[in-house]
């Protein structure tokens, strides 16, 4: 039953943040179509190591689509050709025998390359640190059922909260905008009564930090939504714009 394919890979190699990058070409034979994309990279790395070469550096961890660590730009798409998945959930059955696959890191001013396919996404943490939370300390909070929350609101908040912080939205956006990421957090917390108290402050601080860190503007192309592995919707961006404007208006 097992089928395998032969493929050619064009992979971005870059020794360090300041080094000049280049594409290297590799050939792989007999790759099982049931293997995941990252397992295919494992096989390639194994081949490189046994030939005395340096393996390709890439970010990955949970390999089940939830940690948000993996971040490859494959054949011109963040997380590759399949829909609603991360790179680690992509399987080789999506590729044809003899195909050439191009792999690049996320490319964006906000995410400088560290090595090969690994980029620095600390900017996302900085944006969350600026206000992506409810300012509540441990202890001294009311019973969990004290405030009823409409199921629809809880569900919508959950939709927004399912963002994994991978950065595919930024990598895909021609302006390098982080609006989808930021708006997902702003929306989640604005929809819940616990987050409403500081919604104005939150929206202002997160947007200001996003701008400060050099992310571009949103021009409503919607590419981010298409490539988001978790299907986070751009309606969140509209909500954030409202939140932001209302906050500014109050000033």
């Amino acid at each position, binding site marked *: *039953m*097992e089928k395998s394919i032969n493929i050619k890979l064009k992979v971005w190699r870059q020794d360090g943040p300041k080094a000049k990058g280049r594409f290297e070409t590799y050939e792989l034979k007999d790759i099982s179509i*049931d*293997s*995941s994309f990252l*397992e295919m990279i494992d096989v390639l790395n*194994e081949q490189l*190591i*046994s030939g*005395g070469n*340096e*393996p390709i550096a890439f970010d*990955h*961890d*949970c*390999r*089940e*689509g*939830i*940690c*948000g*660590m993996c971040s490859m730009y494959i054949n011109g798409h963040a997380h590759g050709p*399949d829909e609603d998945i991360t790179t680690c*959930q992509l*399987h080789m*059955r999506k590729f044809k025998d003899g195909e050439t696959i191009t792999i690049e890191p996320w490319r964006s001013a906000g995410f400088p390359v*560290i*090595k090969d396919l690994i980029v*620095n*996404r600390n900017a*996302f*943490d900085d944006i*969350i*640190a600026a206000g*992506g*939370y*409810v300012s*509540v*300390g*441990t*202890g001294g*909070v*009311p*019973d*969990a*059922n004290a405030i*009823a929350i*409409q*199921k629809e609101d*809880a569900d919508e*908040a*959950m939709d927004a*909260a*399912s963002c*994994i*912080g991978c950065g595919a939205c930024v990598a895909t956006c021609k302006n390098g905008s982080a609006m989808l990421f930021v708006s997902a957090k702003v929306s*989640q*917390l604005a929809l*819940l009564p*616990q987050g409403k108290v500081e919604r104005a402050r939150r929206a202002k601080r997160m947007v200001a930090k996003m701008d400060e860190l050099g992310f571009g503007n949103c021009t409503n192309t919607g590419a981010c939504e298409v490539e988001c592995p978790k299907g986070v919707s751009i309606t969140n961006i509209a909500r954030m714009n409202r939140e932001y404007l209302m906050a500014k208006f109050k000033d």
Partner: protein
Amino acid sequence: MTKIDAKIPEGDLTQKWTNYKNHQNLVNPSNKRRLDIIVVGTGLAGASAAASLAEMGFKVKSFTIQDSPRRAHSIAAQGGINAAKNYPNDGDSVYRLFYDTIKGGDYRAREANVYRLAEVSNSIIDQCVAQGVPFAREYGGQLDNRSFGGAQVSRTFYARGQTGQQLLLGAYQALMRQVNEKNVELHTRTELVEIVKIEGKARGIITRDLVTGKLERHFGHAVVLATGGYGNTFFLSTNAMGSNASAAWKAYQNGALMANPDYVQIHPTCIPVHGEFQSKLTLMSESLRNDGRIWVPAKKEDAEAIRAGKLKPTAIAEENRDYYLERRYPAFGNLVPRDVASRAAKERCDAGFGVGATGLAVYLDFKDSIGRLGKDTIEARYGNLFQMYEKIVDENPYETPMMIYPAIHYTMGGLWVDYELQTNIPGLFCLGEANFSDHGANRLGASALMQGLADGYFVLPFTIQNYLSDDIRTPRMSTDLPEFEEKENKVKERFEKLLSIKGELSVDHIHKELGHVMWDFVGMARNKEGLEKALKRIVEIKNKFWSNVRIPGNMEGLNSELEKANRLADFLEMGELIARDALNREESCGGHFREEFQTKEGEALRRDDEFAYVSCWEYKGEDKEPILNKEVLKFEYVELKQRNYK
């Protein structure tokens, strides 16, 4: 021998934690600012502890090997978190959660710790809701609950199939708020490589910056490890690729006791192994057992036809299906605890009834619940899990039953800690999966999240003050002290040694070899002969590693192979200790199943007269046998019984 004192407070079980809190020593706010606490790991336990300690006024240094605290593997927990809220009014209570946990752990956990866990469980849910965690709700606006294995009540709170993600993001956001307030100094892509002791107390760590390769020294008045479990010793597991045992192993080499390393949880519902190139296994949440029914063909010829690809499971008539969990355990049915469900699957597959191309799989079928509740309801409950399954296996689980098989998932064993979550090294604390404390020989579903957050939000912030109250006059120490220097040199030597081997085998190649030995001989069913064989084989693999591993590159800059090799060196030691502990424990309990010790029905047979103790292993040096210390478990409130889920 180390003297073992669990420091369990006086008083009735229900009063111990209250008594402790009433009488412990505290640190006043102005002194808190002068005390540094190192917290290693940013999963549920680490992030919640770091955030809570910083909120209280301590100066916290937080470390993670990932690029962001939000990536810790707690993020992957799917199903839910337990609490004794009794919102569904179905008979739950703190005592019942305590009892279920003790029983589920096959009577190998400390009563006082488990009771405290059940006691603080409700506060966790309150805390998470206040943070904006979007738990599932009913139409009336109240929180929804579901059931997990080993319980007859619905006490599990959940956020779709991403509960771990949402709880971790809550803790992460609390942590980032403290980073913003400058109460936490955050170090990402930084790995602990040594622990520094000064005058017998833990006072710091040596880390390696995984981007620059630089070794760094950090001082702390206390050091907290929340670095997760050691499941990746088996190579294939549901753990993340980077999950490792190294921080705990460094603690062990520095004199901390390692407790019950052989208690490893094998989760019954994982996607089966599909080939030699496989890098990890994916869990399908236990919550699926609420609505899915587990079965294999009742006739061997049907199973054979399925394996040969000649028959589809949907073509097998109802009367020719063996719903073996419902048959064997009518009271709990598909919701028996994980160890029981895993062994039952193995038993059927070993007997020749397994399905899938390899025969190492059973079905998890949603046909009946889709018929009863409709596809939409099932999709609302488990949609993301079904999608995940389809992407991996390329089959639609709404139409054809899922195939599942047990896999290594969680480690109940870990660093020994007392009631205060302190190891036997003063000032070294351990939280979450990394410690051994609350789950006994088997963890119940949805209890890992509960324990991680209990430790981090509601236990450590109290208990660590009892230790630090003696340290308020201890000034911050210089990292130029010889103790730091000596440990840094030791680390340098180790890395140089690794890089100098220049052999022929890749790190993964050797890790896979270790994994095979662990799974074959130290996995779901163990016996004396197999374990002795494993111990021999592990030593051989260790020698192979230290003489023939190939690590490209050097110490400078980012070097993933060097990171992996450094961790594998510790997994090899850990594997040996797991096998040694399993060989010593001549009984079956929870996740530890010795074939020599089973009941007539094939259930785990405990030997309470001889083995009602925590095995606490003490390091004696390289190539020397460790010493076994015992913490005898006293059961004053529950009666020890043969577990019965019939």
